[in-house]
């Protein structure tokens, strides 16, 4: 009994948190009239099922192009951002240059600055740079402000600092230059940290709303979250379609998280070291 209790409690807690998601999933497959009937929540396996909501959502929200835009945005931020942030973090961790500590202090301060604070000046900068006009520039505008990220630089620097310097010294003796030390030795040694940064960035930017709303003024540059929000405001309001859109917006990020989860394992960077 004693061993059973924690299980029961854990499952109960999980159900409590999963309930709204399960409701959303079930409602997305229900005819519009059925969703708000009394007792719908209790009859998850009763009632009729339909795929019409998904078809409506896909069409009305132009989800195909929105998904592609969101994927491009996230892929751009994650990949280019990873390169920029790891390079900056490595420089802060390993290179000695005048003003390093001061600069790093500035980076740390930037962590606490929310994007809402700088959104307006950022928008004017982007507009002046022509990043609001046309598909290509707007996509660049979606990506560019988030490439260098203070938290990622800080987080990755801390991980580089935990690497024994002997790893890079061994590489120096082996004939590696500065770039090879970074690329072939230091970077692969902090893979779990890289995976963490990728997952956090994916989750954050897939859910981005404010900045895409400001910068993507044309329909063809809308991201998933903007398209979803539009369903709330454009009559007729179809709750089934909204919920179906929400499910589809969640699926890619769930799949990516599931895929990347295996990389977030116990760090093995010190296993070549006593």
């Amino acid at each position, binding site marked *: 009994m004693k061993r059973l209790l924690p299980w029961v409690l854990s499952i109960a807690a999980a159900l409590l948190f999963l309930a709204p998601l399960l409701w959303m999933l079930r409602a997305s497959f229900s005819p519009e009239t059925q969703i708000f009937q009394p007792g719908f929540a209790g009859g998850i396996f009763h009632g009729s099922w339909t795929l019409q909501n998904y078809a409506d959502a896909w069409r009305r929200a132009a989800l195909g192009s929105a998904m592609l835009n969101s994927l491009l945005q996230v892929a751009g931020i994650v990949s280019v951002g990873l390169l920029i942030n790891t390079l900056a973090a490595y420089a802060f961790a390993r290179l000695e240059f005048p003003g390093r500590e001061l600069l790093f202090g500035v980076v740390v301060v930037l962590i606490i600055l929310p994007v809402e604070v700088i959104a307006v000046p950022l928008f004017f900068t982007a507009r002046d740079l022509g990043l609001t006009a046309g598909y290509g520039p707007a996509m660049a505008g979606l990506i560019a402000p988030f490439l260098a990220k203070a938290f990622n630089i800080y987080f990755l620097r801390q991980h580089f600092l935990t690497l024994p310097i*002997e790893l890079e010294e*061994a590489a120096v003796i082996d*004939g590696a230059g500065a770039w090879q030390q970074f690329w072939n030795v230091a970077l692969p040694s902090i893979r779990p940290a890289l995976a963490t940064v990728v997952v956090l960035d994916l989750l954050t930017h897939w859910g981005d709303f404010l900045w895409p709303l400001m910068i993507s003024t044309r329909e063809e540059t809308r991201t998933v979250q903007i398209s979803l929000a539009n369903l709330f405001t454009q009559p007729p309001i179809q709750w089934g379609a909204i919920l179906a859109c929400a499910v589809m917006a969640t699926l890619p990020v769930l799949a990516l998280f599931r895929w990347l989860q295996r990389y977030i394992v116990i760090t093995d960077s010190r296993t070549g*070291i*006593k």
Partner: protein
Amino acid sequence: MAQVVIENLTKSYSGKTGANVVAVNRINLTVNDREFMVLVGPSGCGKSTTLRMIAGLEEITAGTVSIDGRVVNDVLPKDRDIAMVFQNYALYPHMSVYENMAFGLKLRKLPKAEIDQRVREAAAMLGLEELLDRKPKALSGGQRQRVAVGRAIVRKPKVFLFDEPLSNLDAKSRVSTRTEISKLHERLGATMIYVTHDQVEAMTMGDRICVMKDGQIMQVDEPLALYNRPANLFVAGFIGSPAMNFFHGSLRAQNGEFRFDSDKSTGAKIDLVLPRSTLSSNLQSDSGKPMVMGIRPENLHLEKAAVAGKTIEAKLELAEPMGAETYLHLQTGSTPFTARVAPTGRHEPGQTVYVSVDSDRLHFFDPTTGEALRQSPIHRTNR
């Protein structure tokens, strides 16, 4: 293979308080071709810094390092033709054993077939064939260190540098890896420079040993020469385990013979008659001056009773049976000392014992400078 010549090598840096700290102070050392040189000394003596300057991992403040006749001060580590084995192995965690060993060769853009041949040769030499596909995390400490050695071997360098490679191993692996490295030196016939703080490693592995302290070289010699003819108090006390015993006192000429009287302030009761033949004429002329007499623990012997002028009376503090021998921790006055005796008889703490000394195996040092006073003629014939 190559000779390594160090001339007036100095390393200094600014400490936390801004003061200039000299880690290595104008040292001169020649490591001969195919020699196994051990740099030994306590923590902070500058041995690792010296090795790192040879490797090119540490900038040289002054002086020169030459490898094979070429000054390498401004040569990149990769172009010095050296390989280094680190204390913590420093294996690349994301690479297999094979990739770890091949990495340096790949960077040098060697043909794939040659890389494969070299890695497999080294793996066979070190018994790593079965482990080539494993990652470092799946290896034991001893295996990791063998991989680190393998990574050095495949490069076929002129000089091998070892920075306390056995420190992280357990006692058993340490002994076996020590033997392996010595055998490897025989087999490869390479010049090797090996840093350790363990004097047993130094004694058993080195062709010659360089003893360092406070950034300076105290003595460079063959292991037994260091043991038998230490140049100063530091070397005498550092090399040998248990350490050499020291007694402060002076020599006194009396009735055609010499006696060593312990310094009365230490409370030690030592009055030993030393045959004139065991003392060099120079030492005899130093009689009357304060000096430090050194006796190795194995040159002390238990006697059944006191013999005037021949034995030291002492109190037994502790007996440590080691199996093959027993260490007796003794005290005369306030001076502690150790005797290494046969593992026979019962020893009770607190009992009074009498020990005699091999008077032809004594060492004498200047108490002010710590330098060895000229040795006895017998010592010199024992070279």
